[in-house]
Protein backbone atom coordinates (compact mmCIF):
# COMPACT_ATOMS: atom_id res chain seq x y z
CA UNK A 1 0.00 0.00 0.00
CA UNK A 2 2.76 2.41 1.00
CA UNK A 3 6.40 1.90 0.18
CA UNK A 4 9.32 4.15 1.13
CA UNK A 5 12.59 3.12 -0.47
CA UNK A 6 15.93 4.67 0.41
CA UNK A 7 14.47 8.06 1.38
CA UNK A 8 17.07 10.70 2.23
CA UNK A 9 16.60 14.33 3.16
CA UNK A 10 19.24 16.86 4.13
CA UNK A 11 18.18 20.39 5.15
CA UNK A 12 20.44 23.37 4.39
CA UNK A 13 22.90 21.18 2.56
CA UNK A 14 26.43 22.56 2.40
CA UNK A 15 25.88 25.23 5.06
CA UNK A 16 26.76 25.42 8.74
CA UNK A 17 23.22 24.37 9.63
CA UNK A 18 23.33 21.22 7.57
CA UNK A 19 20.99 18.66 9.07
CA UNK A 20 20.45 15.11 7.95
CA UNK A 21 16.76 14.78 8.71
CA UNK A 22 16.21 11.40 7.06
CA UNK A 23 18.92 8.87 6.47
CA UNK A 24 17.99 6.01 4.17
CA UNK A 25 14.46 5.30 5.34
CA UNK A 26 12.88 2.07 4.14
CA UNK A 27 9.35 1.25 5.18
CA UNK A 28 6.61 -0.90 3.77
CA UNK A 29 2.97 -0.81 4.88
CA UNK A 30 0.55 -3.53 3.83
CA UNK A 31 -3.11 -2.62 3.35
CA UNK A 32 -4.79 -2.21 6.73
CA UNK A 33 -1.53 -1.78 8.64
CA UNK A 34 -1.67 0.68 11.53
CA UNK A 35 1.88 1.68 12.40
CA UNK A 36 2.68 3.87 15.39
CA UNK A 37 5.87 5.94 15.22
CA UNK A 38 7.86 7.04 18.27
CA UNK A 39 11.19 8.83 18.60
CA UNK A 40 12.81 11.78 20.31
CA UNK A 41 12.43 15.41 19.20
CA UNK A 42 14.14 16.00 15.89
CA UNK A 43 14.27 12.31 15.03
CA UNK A 44 12.70 13.02 11.65
CA UNK A 45 9.17 11.73 12.24
CA UNK A 46 7.38 14.78 10.90
CA UNK A 47 9.81 15.03 8.01
CA UNK A 48 9.00 11.45 7.06
CA UNK A 49 5.26 12.17 7.11
CA UNK A 50 5.82 15.33 5.07
CA UNK A 51 7.66 13.25 2.47
CA UNK A 52 4.70 10.93 2.16
CA UNK A 53 2.15 13.75 1.95
CA UNK A 54 4.26 15.64 -0.59
CA UNK A 55 4.75 18.75 1.55
CA UNK A 56 8.47 17.99 1.14
CA UNK A 57 10.27 16.07 -1.60
CA UNK A 58 13.13 13.67 -0.82
CA UNK A 59 16.66 14.35 -2.07
CA UNK A 60 16.58 10.83 -3.37
CA UNK A 61 14.60 7.66 -2.83
CA UNK A 62 11.18 6.59 -4.05
CA UNK A 63 7.68 6.69 -2.58
CA UNK A 64 4.95 4.41 -3.87
CA UNK A 65 1.29 4.56 -2.89
CA UNK A 66 -1.09 1.85 -4.07
CA UNK A 67 1.46 0.72 -6.66
CA UNK A 68 1.79 4.23 -8.13
CA UNK A 69 5.09 6.04 -7.82
CA UNK A 70 4.28 9.47 -6.35
CA UNK A 71 7.76 10.79 -5.45
CA UNK A 72 7.49 13.81 -7.73
CA UNK A 73 3.73 14.33 -7.54
CA UNK A 74 2.84 17.72 -6.01
CA UNK A 75 1.13 17.75 -2.64
CA UNK A 76 -2.31 18.73 -3.88
CA UNK A 77 -2.42 15.84 -6.36
CA UNK A 78 -1.21 13.33 -3.84
CA UNK A 79 -3.65 14.37 -1.15
CA UNK A 80 -6.35 12.70 -3.20
CA UNK A 81 -5.11 9.43 -1.66
CA UNK A 82 -3.92 10.75 1.69
CA UNK A 83 -5.83 11.85 4.75
CA UNK A 84 -3.96 13.94 7.27
CA UNK A 85 -4.50 15.33 10.74
CA UNK A 86 -2.00 17.86 12.06
CA UNK A 87 -0.78 18.47 15.58
CA UNK A 88 -2.21 21.99 15.62
CA UNK A 89 -6.03 21.84 15.93
CA UNK A 90 -6.17 25.08 13.90
CA UNK A 91 -4.35 23.55 10.95
CA UNK A 92 -6.86 21.02 9.67
CA UNK A 93 -9.99 23.13 9.24
CA UNK A 94 -11.04 26.46 7.72
CA UNK A 95 -12.09 28.60 10.73
CA UNK A 96 -14.32 31.17 8.98
CA UNK A 97 -16.34 28.49 7.22
CA UNK A 98 -19.13 26.41 8.71
CA UNK A 99 -18.92 22.78 9.79
CA UNK A 100 -20.91 21.64 6.76
CA UNK A 101 -18.77 23.71 4.39
CA UNK A 102 -15.60 22.22 5.87
CA UNK A 103 -17.05 18.75 5.43
CA UNK A 104 -18.01 19.60 1.84
CA UNK A 105 -14.41 20.57 1.11
CA UNK A 106 -13.20 17.28 2.54
CA UNK A 107 -15.90 15.44 0.61
CA UNK A 108 -14.54 16.81 -2.70
CA UNK A 109 -11.07 15.47 -1.96
CA UNK A 110 -11.17 12.67 -4.49
CA UNK A 111 -13.62 14.28 -6.92
CA UNK A 112 -13.28 17.01 -9.47
CA UNK A 113 -14.50 20.31 -8.02
CA UNK A 114 -17.16 21.93 -10.17
CA UNK A 115 -19.97 24.45 -10.07
CA UNK A 116 -22.31 22.24 -8.08
CA UNK A 117 -23.38 23.39 -4.64
CA UNK A 118 -20.83 22.13 -2.11
CA UNK A 119 -23.63 21.36 0.34
CA UNK A 120 -26.86 19.84 -0.92
CA UNK A 121 -29.58 17.95 0.90
CA UNK A 122 -28.17 14.52 0.14
CA UNK A 123 -24.70 15.47 1.32
CA UNK A 124 -26.10 17.17 4.38
CA UNK A 125 -27.71 13.90 5.43
CA UNK A 126 -24.43 12.11 4.90
CA UNK A 127 -22.55 14.75 6.91
CA UNK A 128 -25.07 14.49 9.71
CA UNK A 129 -24.83 10.70 10.00
CA UNK A 130 -21.03 10.92 9.83
CA UNK A 131 -20.94 13.53 12.58
CA UNK A 132 -23.19 11.43 14.79
CA UNK A 133 -20.34 8.95 15.12
CA UNK A 134 -18.31 11.57 16.98
CA UNK A 135 -20.98 11.84 19.73
CA UNK A 136 -20.11 15.52 20.17
CA UNK A 137 -23.51 16.82 19.09
CA UNK A 138 -21.86 18.52 16.11
CA UNK A 139 -24.57 17.09 13.84
CA UNK A 140 -26.90 19.73 15.25
CA UNK A 141 -24.46 22.57 14.62
CA UNK A 142 -23.88 22.16 10.89
CA UNK A 143 -24.06 25.93 10.34
CA UNK A 144 -21.72 26.90 13.17
CA UNK A 145 -18.40 28.44 12.14
CA UNK A 146 -15.55 26.05 12.86
CA UNK A 147 -13.55 28.85 14.48
CA UNK A 148 -16.01 28.70 17.38
CA UNK A 149 -15.31 25.04 18.19
CA UNK A 150 -12.99 23.92 20.96
CA UNK A 151 -9.61 22.38 20.12
CA UNK A 152 -10.89 18.89 20.83
CA UNK A 153 -14.02 19.35 18.71
CA UNK A 154 -11.93 20.72 15.89
CA UNK A 155 -9.54 17.80 16.07
CA UNK A 156 -12.44 15.34 16.04
CA UNK A 157 -13.84 17.12 13.00
CA UNK A 158 -10.42 17.07 11.31
CA UNK A 159 -10.21 13.36 11.95
CA UNK A 160 -13.61 12.78 10.41
CA UNK A 161 -12.73 14.98 7.43
CA UNK A 162 -9.48 13.09 6.92
CA UNK A 163 -11.12 9.67 7.00
CA UNK A 164 -14.64 9.77 5.61
CA UNK A 165 -13.58 9.69 1.96
CA UNK A 166 -11.63 6.49 2.65
CA UNK A 167 -8.10 7.59 1.73
CA UNK A 168 -5.46 4.99 0.86
CA UNK A 169 -3.21 6.32 3.63
CA UNK A 170 -3.99 8.15 6.87
CA UNK A 171 -1.19 10.25 8.38
CA UNK A 172 -1.49 11.43 11.98
CA UNK A 173 1.27 13.64 13.38
CA UNK A 174 0.89 13.96 17.17
CA UNK A 175 -2.75 14.80 16.59
CA UNK A 176 -3.62 14.50 20.28
CA UNK A 177 -0.58 16.38 21.62
CA UNK A 178 -2.24 19.80 21.91
CA UNK A 179 -5.26 18.52 23.84
CA UNK A 180 -5.88 18.03 27.55
CA UNK A 181 -5.79 14.39 28.74
CA UNK A 182 -9.53 13.72 28.59
CA UNK A 183 -9.89 15.27 25.12
CA UNK A 184 -6.79 13.40 24.00
CA UNK A 185 -8.36 10.15 25.12
CA UNK A 186 -11.56 10.97 23.25
CA UNK A 187 -9.60 11.60 20.06
CA UNK A 188 -7.51 8.46 20.59
CA UNK A 189 -10.65 6.36 20.87
CA UNK A 190 -12.15 8.03 17.83
CA UNK A 191 -8.98 7.35 15.89
CA UNK A 192 -9.20 3.69 16.77
CA UNK A 193 -12.87 3.54 15.84
CA UNK A 194 -12.57 5.38 12.52
CA UNK A 195 -9.46 3.47 11.42
CA UNK A 196 -11.10 0.15 12.19
CA UNK A 197 -14.40 1.06 10.56
CA UNK A 198 -12.77 2.16 7.33
CA UNK A 199 -9.92 -0.34 7.52
CA UNK A 200 -7.43 2.46 6.84
CA UNK A 201 -3.72 2.04 6.35
CA UNK A 202 -2.37 4.38 9.00
CA UNK A 203 0.87 5.96 10.16
CA UNK A 204 0.61 7.70 13.53
CA UNK A 205 3.34 9.72 15.23
CA UNK A 206 3.05 10.07 19.00
CA UNK A 207 5.18 10.99 21.98
CA UNK A 208 2.96 8.98 24.24
CA UNK A 209 4.50 5.51 24.50
CA UNK A 210 1.43 3.98 26.06
CA UNK A 211 -0.67 5.26 23.17
CA UNK A 212 1.88 3.87 20.71
CA UNK A 213 1.64 0.49 22.36
CA UNK A 214 -2.14 0.45 22.71
CA UNK A 215 -2.94 1.44 19.15
CA UNK A 216 -2.07 -0.26 15.90
CA UNK A 217 -0.58 -3.57 14.86
CA UNK A 218 3.02 -2.43 14.29
CA UNK A 219 5.42 0.05 15.86
CA UNK A 220 8.58 1.76 14.68
CA UNK A 221 11.09 3.82 16.64
CA UNK A 222 13.08 6.56 14.93
CA UNK A 223 16.26 8.29 16.00
CA UNK A 224 18.57 10.71 14.19
CA UNK A 225 16.82 10.24 10.86
CA UNK A 226 16.79 6.48 10.93
CA UNK A 227 14.32 3.76 11.77
CA UNK A 228 16.19 2.01 14.58
CA UNK A 229 13.57 -0.44 15.72
CA UNK A 230 10.63 -2.23 14.13
CA UNK A 231 8.11 -4.23 16.15
CA UNK A 232 6.00 -6.47 13.97
CA UNK A 233 2.46 -7.72 14.30
CA UNK A 234 3.48 -10.87 16.18
CA UNK A 235 5.44 -9.08 18.91
CA UNK A 236 3.38 -5.92 19.30
CA UNK A 237 0.55 -7.30 21.49
CA UNK A 238 2.95 -8.23 24.30
CA UNK A 239 5.07 -5.07 24.08
CA UNK A 240 5.59 -2.96 27.23
CA UNK A 241 7.23 0.41 27.90
CA UNK A 242 10.22 -1.16 29.73
CA UNK A 243 10.73 -3.42 26.69
CA UNK A 244 11.04 -0.35 24.46
CA UNK A 245 13.46 1.36 26.84
CA UNK A 246 15.78 -1.66 27.04
CA UNK A 247 15.68 -2.04 23.27
CA UNK A 248 16.69 1.59 22.84
CA UNK A 249 19.58 1.28 25.30
CA UNK A 250 20.65 -1.89 23.59
CA UNK A 251 20.73 -0.24 20.14
CA UNK A 252 22.07 3.18 21.01
CA UNK A 253 24.15 2.28 24.04
CA UNK A 254 22.67 5.21 25.98
CA UNK A 255 19.82 5.57 28.39
CA UNK A 256 16.54 6.67 26.88
CA UNK A 257 14.98 7.88 30.13
CA UNK A 258 17.01 11.07 29.77
CA UNK A 259 14.66 12.01 26.96
CA UNK A 260 11.56 13.07 28.83
CA UNK A 261 9.69 14.00 25.70
CA UNK A 262 9.71 10.45 24.42
CA UNK A 263 8.01 9.17 27.54
CA UNK A 264 5.10 11.50 27.17
CA UNK A 265 2.35 11.51 29.73
Amino acid at each position, binding site marked *: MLKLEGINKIFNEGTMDEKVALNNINLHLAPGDFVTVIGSNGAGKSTMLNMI*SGALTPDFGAITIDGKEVTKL*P*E*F*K*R*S*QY*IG*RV*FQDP*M*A*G*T*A*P*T*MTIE*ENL*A*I*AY*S*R*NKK*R*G*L*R*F*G*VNRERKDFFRTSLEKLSLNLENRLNAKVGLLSGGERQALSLL*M*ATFTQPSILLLDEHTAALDPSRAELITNLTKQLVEENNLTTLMVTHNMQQAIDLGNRLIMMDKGQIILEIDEAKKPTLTIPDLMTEFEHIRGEKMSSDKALLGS
Partner: protein
Amino acid sequence: MFLSIFGSVEQGIIYAIMALGVYLTFRVLDFPDLTVDGSFVTGAATAAMMIVLGYHPIIATLIAIVAGFIAGCMTGLLHTKGKINALLAGILMQIALYSINLRIMGFSAENVIVKPNIQLQSNETIFSQFQGFWSPLGIDTALSNFVKSLGASAAPGTWGTVLIVLIITVIIKLLADWFLKTEVGLAIRATGDNKRMIRSFSANTDRYTILGLGISNALVAFSGSLIAQYSKFSDVNMGIGMIVIGLASVIIGEAIFGTKTIFRATLAVVFGAIIYRIIYALALRVPWLDSSDMKLITAIIVVLALVIPQLVSKQRDKKRKEKRRLERLREQRELVTQGGNDLA
Protein backbone atom coordinates in the same frame (compact mmCIF):
# COMPACT_ATOMS: atom_id res chain seq x y z
CA MET B 1 -29.88 68.04 -3.17
CA PHE B 2 -32.20 65.22 -4.16
CA LEU B 3 -30.68 65.12 -7.62
CA SER B 4 -27.11 64.86 -6.42
CA ILE B 5 -28.03 62.11 -3.96
CA PHE B 6 -29.91 60.34 -6.73
CA GLY B 7 -26.85 60.52 -8.97
CA SER B 8 -24.69 59.20 -6.13
CA VAL B 9 -26.97 56.23 -5.67
CA GLU B 10 -26.80 55.45 -9.40
CA GLN B 11 -23.03 55.60 -9.36
CA GLY B 12 -22.79 53.78 -6.06
CA ILE B 13 -24.73 50.87 -7.49
CA ILE B 14 -22.27 50.67 -10.40
CA TYR B 15 -19.24 51.00 -8.11
CA ALA B 16 -20.73 48.24 -5.95
CA ILE B 17 -19.69 45.74 -8.62
CA MET B 18 -16.09 46.94 -8.24
CA ALA B 19 -16.44 46.71 -4.45
CA LEU B 20 -17.65 43.11 -4.78
CA GLY B 21 -14.46 42.40 -6.70
CA VAL B 22 -12.41 43.98 -3.93
CA TYR B 23 -14.36 41.96 -1.36
CA LEU B 24 -13.45 38.79 -3.26
CA THR B 25 -9.72 39.45 -3.04
CA PHE B 26 -9.33 41.31 0.25
CA ARG B 27 -11.81 39.34 2.30
CA VAL B 28 -12.41 35.99 0.63
CA LEU B 29 -8.95 35.28 -0.76
CA ASP B 30 -7.13 37.36 1.88
CA PHE B 31 -5.08 38.80 -0.96
CA PRO B 32 -4.49 42.59 -0.91
CA ASP B 33 -4.80 43.05 -4.67
CA LEU B 34 -3.78 46.46 -5.98
CA THR B 35 -4.38 45.56 -9.63
CA VAL B 36 -7.76 47.25 -9.25
CA ASP B 37 -6.59 50.80 -10.04
CA GLY B 38 -5.38 49.51 -13.39
CA SER B 39 -8.01 46.94 -14.25
CA PHE B 40 -10.85 49.40 -13.58
CA VAL B 41 -9.45 51.62 -16.34
CA THR B 42 -8.80 48.59 -18.53
CA GLY B 43 -12.51 47.86 -18.40
CA ALA B 44 -13.43 51.46 -19.15
CA ALA B 45 -10.83 51.81 -21.92
CA THR B 46 -11.71 48.53 -23.61
CA ALA B 47 -15.43 49.20 -23.62
CA ALA B 48 -15.01 52.81 -24.81
CA MET B 49 -12.56 51.85 -27.53
CA MET B 50 -14.81 49.12 -28.90
CA ILE B 51 -17.91 51.30 -28.76
CA VAL B 52 -16.09 54.01 -30.72
CA LEU B 53 -15.07 51.36 -33.26
CA GLY B 54 -18.76 50.59 -33.67
CA TYR B 55 -19.22 47.39 -31.72
CA HIS B 56 -22.46 46.79 -29.86
CA PRO B 57 -22.19 48.13 -26.27
CA ILE B 58 -23.00 44.70 -24.85
CA ILE B 59 -20.19 43.07 -26.86
CA ALA B 60 -17.85 45.88 -25.80
CA THR B 61 -18.77 45.36 -22.15
CA LEU B 62 -18.27 41.60 -22.36
CA ILE B 63 -14.81 42.04 -23.90
CA ALA B 64 -13.99 44.55 -21.15
CA ILE B 65 -14.88 41.90 -18.55
CA VAL B 66 -12.60 39.38 -20.27
CA ALA B 67 -9.78 41.93 -20.32
CA GLY B 68 -10.15 42.46 -16.57
CA PHE B 69 -10.17 38.72 -16.02
CA ILE B 70 -6.89 38.35 -17.90
CA ALA B 71 -5.31 41.22 -15.96
CA GLY B 72 -6.28 39.56 -12.66
CA CYS B 73 -4.93 36.20 -13.78
CA MET B 74 -1.63 37.89 -14.66
CA THR B 75 -1.33 39.23 -11.11
CA GLY B 76 -2.14 35.74 -9.85
CA LEU B 77 0.55 34.23 -12.06
CA LEU B 78 3.11 36.77 -10.87
CA HIS B 79 2.31 35.89 -7.28
CA THR B 80 1.96 32.10 -7.49
CA LYS B 81 4.39 31.10 -10.21
CA GLY B 82 6.74 34.08 -10.02
CA LYS B 83 6.71 33.96 -6.19
CA ILE B 84 6.34 37.75 -6.05
CA ASN B 85 4.86 39.27 -2.90
CA ALA B 86 1.11 39.88 -3.24
CA LEU B 87 1.25 43.68 -2.85
CA LEU B 88 4.14 44.01 -5.26
CA ALA B 89 2.53 41.73 -7.84
CA GLY B 90 -0.55 43.97 -7.81
CA ILE B 91 1.46 47.18 -8.06
CA LEU B 92 3.53 45.81 -10.93
CA MET B 93 0.40 44.84 -12.81
CA GLN B 94 -1.19 48.21 -12.07
CA ILE B 95 1.81 50.06 -13.51
CA ALA B 96 1.95 47.77 -16.53
CA LEU B 97 -1.76 48.34 -17.14
CA TYR B 98 -1.26 52.11 -17.20
CA SER B 99 0.73 51.78 -20.42
CA ILE B 100 -1.53 49.07 -21.75
CA ASN B 101 -4.64 51.19 -21.12
CA LEU B 102 -3.15 54.07 -23.13
CA ARG B 103 -2.54 51.64 -25.99
CA ILE B 104 -6.03 50.19 -25.74
CA MET B 105 -7.55 53.64 -26.08
CA GLY B 106 -5.11 54.32 -28.91
CA PHE B 107 -6.87 51.66 -30.98
CA SER B 108 -9.94 53.86 -31.13
CA ALA B 109 -8.41 56.45 -33.45
CA GLU B 110 -6.43 56.27 -36.62
CA ASN B 111 -2.90 57.62 -36.76
CA VAL B 112 -2.32 57.48 -33.01
CA ILE B 113 -0.71 54.74 -30.96
CA VAL B 114 -1.71 55.92 -27.50
CA LYS B 115 -4.59 58.03 -26.27
CA PRO B 116 -5.22 59.30 -22.72
CA ASN B 117 -9.01 59.46 -22.96
CA ILE B 118 -12.06 58.70 -25.08
CA GLN B 119 -15.31 60.68 -25.30
CA LEU B 120 -18.53 58.76 -25.85
CA GLN B 121 -20.82 61.80 -26.16
CA SER B 122 -22.57 60.76 -29.34
CA ASN B 123 -22.17 57.00 -29.07
CA GLU B 124 -24.64 54.33 -28.16
CA THR B 125 -24.07 52.86 -24.70
CA ILE B 126 -25.80 50.18 -22.69
CA PHE B 127 -27.69 52.99 -20.98
CA SER B 128 -28.80 54.80 -24.12
CA GLN B 129 -29.95 51.48 -25.55
CA PHE B 130 -31.95 50.69 -22.46
CA GLN B 131 -33.37 54.18 -22.57
CA GLY B 132 -34.69 53.46 -26.05
CA PHE B 133 -36.75 50.66 -24.60
CA TRP B 134 -37.60 52.41 -21.32
CA SER B 135 -38.70 55.92 -22.33
CA PRO B 136 -41.71 54.90 -24.43
CA LEU B 137 -43.15 53.14 -21.36
CA GLY B 138 -43.81 56.56 -19.83
CA ILE B 139 -42.97 55.47 -16.33
CA ASP B 140 -40.46 58.32 -15.93
CA THR B 141 -43.09 61.08 -15.95
CA ALA B 142 -45.30 59.22 -13.52
CA LEU B 143 -42.47 58.65 -11.06
CA SER B 144 -41.17 62.19 -11.39
CA ASN B 145 -44.60 63.66 -10.71
CA PHE B 146 -44.83 61.44 -7.67
CA VAL B 147 -41.46 62.60 -6.33
CA LYS B 148 -42.33 66.24 -6.96
CA SER B 149 -45.60 65.78 -5.11
CA LEU B 150 -43.49 64.64 -2.15
CA GLY B 151 -41.76 67.99 -2.16
CA ALA B 152 -38.56 67.41 -4.18
CA SER B 153 -37.61 70.52 -6.12
CA ALA B 154 -36.46 68.59 -9.18
CA ALA B 155 -36.81 65.03 -10.42
CA PRO B 156 -34.15 63.04 -12.26
CA GLY B 157 -34.27 63.01 -16.05
CA THR B 158 -34.83 59.28 -16.08
CA TRP B 159 -35.37 56.41 -13.70
CA GLY B 160 -34.32 53.87 -16.30
CA THR B 161 -30.63 54.14 -15.49
CA VAL B 162 -31.02 53.44 -11.81
CA LEU B 163 -33.29 50.53 -12.65
CA ILE B 164 -30.91 48.90 -15.11
CA VAL B 165 -27.84 49.28 -12.87
CA LEU B 166 -29.82 47.95 -9.95
CA ILE B 167 -30.84 44.90 -11.95
CA ILE B 168 -27.26 44.29 -13.07
CA THR B 169 -25.78 44.67 -9.59
CA VAL B 170 -28.39 42.49 -7.92
CA ILE B 171 -27.72 39.77 -10.49
CA ILE B 172 -23.96 40.03 -9.90
CA LYS B 173 -24.47 39.93 -6.14
CA LEU B 174 -26.65 36.82 -6.35
CA LEU B 175 -24.20 35.18 -8.74
CA ALA B 176 -21.40 35.87 -6.27
CA ASP B 177 -23.46 34.35 -3.44
CA TRP B 178 -24.11 31.26 -5.51
CA PHE B 179 -20.53 30.95 -6.73
CA LEU B 180 -19.06 31.15 -3.22
CA LYS B 181 -21.19 28.17 -2.23
CA THR B 182 -20.20 25.93 -5.12
CA GLU B 183 -17.41 23.38 -4.75
CA VAL B 184 -15.01 25.71 -6.55
CA GLY B 185 -16.18 28.66 -4.47
CA LEU B 186 -15.69 26.75 -1.23
CA ALA B 187 -12.17 25.87 -2.35
CA ILE B 188 -11.42 29.54 -3.11
CA ARG B 189 -12.70 30.58 0.31
CA ALA B 190 -10.63 27.90 2.00
CA THR B 191 -7.60 29.05 0.01
CA GLY B 192 -8.00 32.43 1.69
CA ASP B 193 -8.70 30.88 5.06
CA ASN B 194 -6.24 28.02 5.47
CA LYS B 195 -3.98 27.12 2.53
CA ARG B 196 -2.39 24.17 4.23
CA MET B 197 -5.76 22.64 4.98
CA ILE B 198 -7.19 22.99 1.49
CA ARG B 199 -4.00 21.63 -0.05
CA SER B 200 -4.39 18.53 2.08
CA PHE B 201 -7.80 18.12 0.45
CA SER B 202 -6.34 17.99 -3.03
CA ALA B 203 -6.93 21.56 -4.13
CA ASN B 204 -4.35 23.40 -6.20
CA THR B 205 -4.15 26.63 -4.21
CA ASP B 206 -2.18 28.36 -6.98
CA ARG B 207 -4.95 27.72 -9.44
CA TYR B 208 -7.66 28.94 -7.06
CA THR B 209 -5.69 32.08 -6.23
CA ILE B 210 -5.33 32.87 -9.94
CA LEU B 211 -9.00 32.13 -10.62
CA GLY B 212 -10.12 34.27 -7.68
CA LEU B 213 -8.01 37.20 -8.82
CA GLY B 214 -9.28 36.78 -12.36
CA ILE B 215 -12.92 36.88 -11.30
CA SER B 216 -12.31 39.80 -8.96
CA ASN B 217 -10.70 41.92 -11.65
CA ALA B 218 -13.34 40.87 -14.17
CA LEU B 219 -15.90 42.46 -11.84
CA VAL B 220 -13.72 45.54 -11.41
CA ALA B 221 -13.37 45.93 -15.18
CA PHE B 222 -17.11 45.41 -15.61
CA SER B 223 -17.71 48.24 -13.18
CA GLY B 224 -15.18 50.40 -15.03
CA SER B 225 -16.84 49.74 -18.37
CA LEU B 226 -20.22 50.73 -16.95
CA ILE B 227 -18.83 53.92 -15.39
CA ALA B 228 -17.30 54.87 -18.74
CA GLN B 229 -20.65 54.39 -20.45
CA TYR B 230 -22.52 56.14 -17.65
CA SER B 231 -20.29 59.22 -17.69
CA LYS B 232 -19.68 58.94 -21.46
CA PHE B 233 -16.00 59.26 -20.81
CA SER B 234 -12.95 57.06 -20.30
CA ASP B 235 -9.73 58.45 -18.91
CA VAL B 236 -6.42 56.81 -18.12
CA ASN B 237 -6.41 58.37 -14.64
CA MET B 238 -9.96 57.44 -13.66
CA GLY B 239 -8.73 54.45 -11.63
CA ILE B 240 -6.43 56.29 -9.25
CA GLY B 241 -7.34 55.41 -5.68
CA MET B 242 -10.01 52.95 -6.81
CA ILE B 243 -8.66 50.24 -4.51
CA VAL B 244 -9.07 52.49 -1.49
CA ILE B 245 -12.61 53.38 -2.55
CA GLY B 246 -13.38 49.68 -2.92
CA LEU B 247 -11.91 48.96 0.47
CA ALA B 248 -13.78 51.86 2.04
CA SER B 249 -17.03 50.46 0.62
CA VAL B 250 -16.30 46.98 1.95
CA ILE B 251 -15.38 48.25 5.41
CA ILE B 252 -18.28 50.70 5.71
CA GLY B 253 -20.72 48.00 4.62
CA GLU B 254 -19.34 45.40 6.99
CA ALA B 255 -19.36 47.83 9.90
CA ILE B 256 -23.03 48.65 9.38
CA PHE B 257 -24.51 45.38 8.14
CA GLY B 258 -22.18 42.68 9.48
CA THR B 259 -20.77 39.59 7.81
CA LYS B 260 -22.67 36.74 9.40
CA THR B 261 -23.37 34.92 6.15
CA ILE B 262 -22.11 35.29 2.60
CA PHE B 263 -25.47 36.72 1.59
CA ARG B 264 -25.24 39.39 4.28
CA ALA B 265 -21.60 40.14 3.55
CA THR B 266 -22.12 40.78 -0.17
CA LEU B 267 -25.23 42.81 0.56
CA ALA B 268 -23.17 44.85 3.01
CA VAL B 269 -20.58 45.51 0.30
CA VAL B 270 -23.23 46.76 -2.13
CA PHE B 271 -24.73 49.11 0.46
CA GLY B 272 -21.25 50.15 1.54
CA ALA B 273 -20.49 51.29 -2.00
CA ILE B 274 -23.70 53.30 -2.21
CA ILE B 275 -23.18 54.88 1.21
CA TYR B 276 -19.64 55.81 0.24
CA ARG B 277 -20.94 57.65 -2.84
CA ILE B 278 -23.50 59.53 -0.75
CA ILE B 279 -20.83 60.57 1.77
CA TYR B 280 -18.74 61.69 -1.20
CA ALA B 281 -21.57 63.80 -2.58
CA LEU B 282 -22.29 65.36 0.79
CA ALA B 283 -18.61 66.14 1.35
CA LEU B 284 -18.48 67.92 -2.00
CA ARG B 285 -21.25 70.24 -0.84
CA VAL B 286 -19.10 71.48 2.02
CA PRO B 287 -18.09 74.92 0.69
CA TRP B 288 -14.43 74.90 1.70
CA LEU B 289 -13.77 71.41 0.32
CA ASP B 290 -12.46 70.88 -3.19
CA SER B 291 -13.24 67.78 -5.20
CA SER B 292 -9.52 67.02 -5.20
CA ASP B 293 -9.71 66.66 -1.41
CA MET B 294 -11.81 63.55 -1.92
CA LYS B 295 -8.85 61.17 -1.97
CA LEU B 296 -7.77 62.49 1.41
CA ILE B 297 -11.29 62.12 2.74
CA THR B 298 -11.47 58.57 1.39
CA ALA B 299 -8.22 57.71 3.15
CA ILE B 300 -9.56 59.19 6.37
CA ILE B 301 -12.81 57.21 6.02
CA VAL B 302 -10.86 53.98 5.63
CA VAL B 303 -8.62 54.79 8.59
CA LEU B 304 -11.63 55.62 10.77
CA ALA B 305 -13.50 52.55 9.63
CA LEU B 306 -10.49 50.44 10.56
CA VAL B 307 -9.76 52.11 13.89
CA ILE B 308 -13.22 52.76 15.34
CA PRO B 309 -14.30 49.10 15.53
CA GLN B 310 -11.09 48.35 17.44
CA LEU B 311 -11.81 51.10 19.93
CA VAL B 312 -15.41 50.00 20.30
CA SER B 313 -14.49 46.40 21.03
CA LYS B 314 -11.78 47.50 23.45
CA GLN B 315 -14.31 49.67 25.27
CA ARG B 316 -16.78 46.80 25.36
CA ASP B 317 -14.09 44.51 26.73
CA LYS B 318 -13.26 46.99 29.46
CA LYS B 319 -16.92 47.29 30.46
CA ARG B 320 -17.32 43.53 30.59
CA LYS B 321 -14.23 43.08 32.73
CA GLU B 322 -15.40 45.79 35.11
CA LYS B 323 -18.80 44.12 35.40
CA ARG B 324 -17.16 40.77 36.15
CA ARG B 325 -14.95 42.38 38.76
CA LEU B 326 -17.97 43.87 40.53
CA GLU B 327 -19.83 40.55 40.41
CA ARG B 328 -16.83 38.75 41.84
CA LEU B 329 -16.63 41.33 44.62
CA ARG B 330 -20.31 40.95 45.46
CA GLU B 331 -20.01 37.14 45.51
CA GLN B 332 -17.10 37.31 47.87
CA ARG B 333 -18.91 39.70 50.13
CA GLU B 334 -21.93 37.39 50.17
CA LEU B 335 -19.69 34.47 50.99
CA VAL B 336 -18.23 36.37 53.90
CA THR B 337 -21.65 37.31 55.30
CA GLN B 338 -22.83 33.72 54.84
CA GLY B 339 -19.73 32.43 56.63
CA GLY B 340 -20.44 34.87 59.44
CA ASN B 341 -24.05 33.68 59.69
CA ASP B 342 -22.95 30.05 59.80
CA LEU B 343 -20.55 30.79 62.61
CA ALA B 344 -23.17 32.60 64.61
